[in-house]
């Protein structure tokens, strides 16, 4: 039988095609496309986390004087800029690329929010620094020039913004007491490993990488964010949704919520102006009107004419109508 099998395999070597030249090209194109898709996945992740945290903050966060915030009086649109960075631990901000820039447009009248995603290679004219790729804008100048460039591009005033990194997500998850997540496929971590004493740390020689086995488990914050990072990296949106659902479930526990809010306030690098939006509570207050079901992601139009009418819609608060007429930009 052994020989029979060896012969059978050897006989079928004639089925093996000569690698066609197109295959090599197809591999390179495929890899490029997939990289672009991973960026979209990341963007969605950051947007989801910050919107979720802000929304969750609303019902219980009392003001310092003990009263609960009132609903926004004005129905003028609100604009926020979110910068998501794939930075782990304490790397200095100067070393990281912004993986995503998202302009959030909130329409209090329609109870809707639109997350306008800036493509990574979109040229942004940074004041004083010249044109830069969008994903390098944060690296080059930090939050401020990027915010100014976006503000000028769209012709809107930004009411505030935030920088979200992995550390922020970890501290939020930590405050939630870890999360219960269900794994569909076995994944091995690239970022976390156990040493001989069973402590979590960076991978290295003699350390066993963390493996996420299929099934539902309790994840501590580092594992949860790591698992999420791997899943989002491979374009798996289900894990992202599961993470957000678990985070929402944790936040519905009144005992955990205060810690969660504090962590969100400390972990996020907030850039908020004075006035009603001057704090996370204020931001949450502003987002109060938004129905979580009505958060839509939009790709920034990059063709001609610039913005394809989106900028005017942002200025006049008619993004809903614009999107209905331009459904091709829906992510």
């Amino acid at each position, binding site marked *: 039988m052994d020989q029979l099998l*060896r012969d059978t395999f050897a006989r*079928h070597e004639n*089925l*093996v*095609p000569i*690698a066609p030249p197109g295959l090599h090209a197809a591999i390179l194109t495929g890899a490029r496309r*997939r990289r672009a898709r991973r960026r979209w996945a990341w963007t969605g992740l950051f947007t989801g986390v910050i919107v979720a945290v802000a929304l969750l903050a609303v019902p219980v966060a009392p003001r310092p004087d003990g009263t609960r915030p009132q609903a926004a009086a004005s129905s003028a649109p609100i604009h926020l800029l979110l910068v998501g960075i794939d930075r782990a631990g304490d790397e200095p901000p100067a070393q990281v690329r912004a993986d995503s820039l998202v302009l959030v447009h909130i329409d209090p009248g329609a109870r809707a929010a639109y997350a306008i995603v800036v493509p990574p290679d979109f040229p942004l004219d940074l004041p004083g620094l010249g044109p830069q790729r969008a994903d390098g804008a944060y690296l080059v100048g930090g939050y401020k020039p990027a915010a100014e460039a976006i503000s000028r591009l769209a012709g809107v005033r930004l009411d505030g913004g935030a920088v979200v990194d992995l550390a922020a997500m970890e501290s939020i998850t930590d405050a939630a007491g870890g999360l219960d997540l269900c794994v569909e496929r076995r994944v091995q971590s*690239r970022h976390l490993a156990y040493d001989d004493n069973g402590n979590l740390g960076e991978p290295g020689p003699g350390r066993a990488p963390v493996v996420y086995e299929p099934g539902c488990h309790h994840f501590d914050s580092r594992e949860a964010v790591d698992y999420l990072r791997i899943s989002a990296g491979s374009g798996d949106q289900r894990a992202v949704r599961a993470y957000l659902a678990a985070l929402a479930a944790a936040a519905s526990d009144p005992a955990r919520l205060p810690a969660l809010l504090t962590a969100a306030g400390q972990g996020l690098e907030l850039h908020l102006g004075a006035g009603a939006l001057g704090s996370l509570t204020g931001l949450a207050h502003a987002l109060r009107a938004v129905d979580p079901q009505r958060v839509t992601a939009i790709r920034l139009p990059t063709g001609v004419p610039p913005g394809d009418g989106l900028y005017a819609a942002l200025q006049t608060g008619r993004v809903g109508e614009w999107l209905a007429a331009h459904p091709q930009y829906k992510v």
Partner: protein
Amino acid sequence: MTFEEFVEARLQALLRYAVMLAGDPHTAQDLVQETMIRAQLKWRQIAAADMPERYVKRMLTNVYFDLHRGSWLRRVVLRGVDLEATMEPRAVGDHADGLAERDQMWVWLGRLPRQQRAALVLRYYEGLTDGEIAEVLGRPVGTVRSWISRALATLRAQVGPALTKGAAP
């Protein structure tokens, strides 16, 4: 080793392995393409591994295991048309040359569960030891041995009657 160098040197070998797994050149080519796309995205990690080729082989095997659930299969089905135009004649021609009888074995191999077939390919085509097979498949050696023995039992049950039938007339 750069990714380019790896592709240059090992693409043909990977295609051979993929044909043995999948049983036909079209699926094999798609397996290799999908694997190499994934490999390029994590190339730094693969290049740092002890044996990059074994790492990639493991990835290819996983892509093969996932054939029925992966979303990439849809793309394969859509692309099937142009591939057939370029590759079918050669495959069919070779098949038709009176090999049909002996290649009953190939058909039986194709009916085995994927994991069992992969274990057989690694042992009898790639010539790996059980320990190495376990490494590529990411399973314990015991599991691998039981897959192989089950596969052999299945094949023996089919070869036995066929041989007697062939000898009778």
